[in-house]
């Protein structure tokens, strides 16, 4: 702890007490600033060191026989196999197949989800007509309808994309509707008092008011879409990262499986990251810095 030197009272020991006080304050602020920077650097270091340490441990354990190397391929071998698959184009082919389905399904599902949610939010009869049914369908595990889709569309791309789109649709629709319904009644009253109506009410009040909730829906559904497409590709596909993982199990190629797992995780992280970027661009009023202070945590 720092101690402040007692200031002589009444005496003119300090030539300019104001200047001395300012300098002291300046030093204290510098100290706080450096301390904060040190803590941040430490946090970052710890965050990076943990996975590296785990990987090292894995490598050592697999090589010394503590872990069964046939099941838990050492990380260096996984990396090597991943590099080979990348060069041969194998990894690329599977990734493209999965990304294509994922993006198509996500876009379809979110466009229709947002539209349905917004329409239900502003038009009460539609909400009354569809709300309960949609809520009931929301509870259904969407992957369970894959066999039905396969029955209808055969083993084509359509059932794969549709599985993703349907899962995304319900999450996005429910979040969009909730976003509109939850807008503060006092905000709506202020809008009405200033004669906002029709398109302008929608564009400048309802849509921005619902947007945070819509973005939450998109973020959640992106993570879910990756799960759904992987599961779909396990059973109903001859390409894609899900197929790669499933197939490596059947052929007992754990290093390939690990490559597939890593690729899928990266895909999920990238999808979520992109949506977070979109969120920051669309919601500047949530992210612009300001007087909102963060509480310092130990």
């Amino acid at each position, binding site marked *: 702890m720092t101690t402040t030197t007692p200031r002589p009272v009444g005496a003119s020991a300090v030539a300019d007490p104001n200047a001395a006080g300012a300098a002291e304050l300046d030093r204290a602020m510098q100290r706080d600033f450096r301390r904060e920077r040190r803590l941040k650097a430490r946090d970052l270091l710890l965050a990076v060191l943990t996975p590296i340490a785990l990987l090292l441990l894995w490598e050592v354990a697999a090589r010394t026989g503590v872990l069964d190397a046939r099941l838990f391929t050492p990380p260096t071998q996984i990396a090597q196999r991943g590099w080979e698959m990348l060069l041969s184009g194998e990894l690329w082919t599977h990734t493209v197949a999965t990304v294509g389905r994922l993006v198509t399904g996500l876009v379809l599902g979110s466009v229709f989800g947002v539209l349905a949610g917004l329409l239900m939010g502003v038009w009460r009869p539609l909400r009354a007509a569809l709300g309960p049914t949609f809520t009931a369908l929301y509870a259904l595990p969407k992957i369970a309808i894959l066999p039905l889709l396969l029955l209808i569309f055969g083993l084509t791309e359509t059932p794969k994309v549709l599985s993703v789109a349907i899962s995304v649709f319900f999450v996005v629709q429910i979040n969009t509707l909730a976003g509109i319904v939850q807008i*503060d009644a*006092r*905000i709506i*009253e*202020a*809008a*009405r*008092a*200033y*004669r*906002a*109506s029709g398109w*302008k009410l929608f564009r*400048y*009040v309802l849509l*921005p*008011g619902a*947007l945070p909730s819509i973005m939450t829906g998109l973020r959640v559904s992106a993570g879910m879409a990756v799960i759904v497409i992987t599961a779909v590709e396990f059973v109903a596909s001859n390409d894609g990262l899900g197929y790669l993982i499933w197939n490596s199990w059947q052929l007992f190629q754990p290093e390939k499986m690990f490559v597939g797992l890593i690729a899928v995780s990266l895909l999920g992280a990238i999808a979520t990251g992109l949506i977070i970027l979109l969120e920051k661009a669309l*919601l*500047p*009023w949530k992210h*612009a*810095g*300001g*007087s*909102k202070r963060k509480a310092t945590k130990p």
Partner: protein
Amino acid sequence: MTQTTTTSADVGRPAFTTRGVSKAFVGRHGNVHALSDINLEFRTGSFTCIVGPSGCGKSTLLRILGGLETPTSGEVTDHLEAGAVPKSAFVFQEHGVFPWLNVLQNVAFGEHMANVGKREREEHARHWIAEVGLTGFEQAYPHQLSGGMRQRIAIARAFATGSPSLLMDEPLGALDAQTRMLMQELLVRLWEAERKTVVLVTHAIEEALLLGDQIVMMSARPGRVKEVIDVPFSRPRDVAIEGTSEFAQARQSIWESLRDEVQLSVRYA
């Protein structure tokens, strides 16, 4: 500026007249009789303050004047001319500014909704942003500002809308005492320059005396007009009058008149 201002010939003409206005809310937990037989006349270019115990229907009366609510019986007439902009511009206690619009967009909102062109409405908005002392914060979002600054956005928006009347519902109620005094001075100054018809609800007797030309005192629910008094202080006014003995006397007599009503409303609250 193309703000609607009141010519001296208009002063004294009623801006709003209420005749036998009553309001009952039908609710799940029974009906609430909020207002009963309100007969008032608000003169054009006057500043009226409404005081009364909480829950006596002050906000309801204001919303009826502004057309946000219809009376259950009785009628409200207004003699305001406004063109495209709303006849009354509201200032709410809190949560009236849009968090997703920056200061400039918030202040320009009323004219935006009235289809005033972007250049013109932003010019008006900048003028009023300067009047309330927020120049430099045009691009800031409300959450980046203090409560007092957010209320100044709301006040600037009401003036910038160009409506001939302003309806304010406890606009300074959520502010700390010092900020509140500054904002009262601001309101006095802006109103004395513009002379719009203002109706302001407040729970502070001092505020009503400082700002108003007349004070409407309301009874506990169902709200009735208990008394209307003229404020004896001349204009231009400033907060210094709060130190005078006339002020203390006026405050005391208003409080005497309100005390029973407040007690009633507390008992049934």
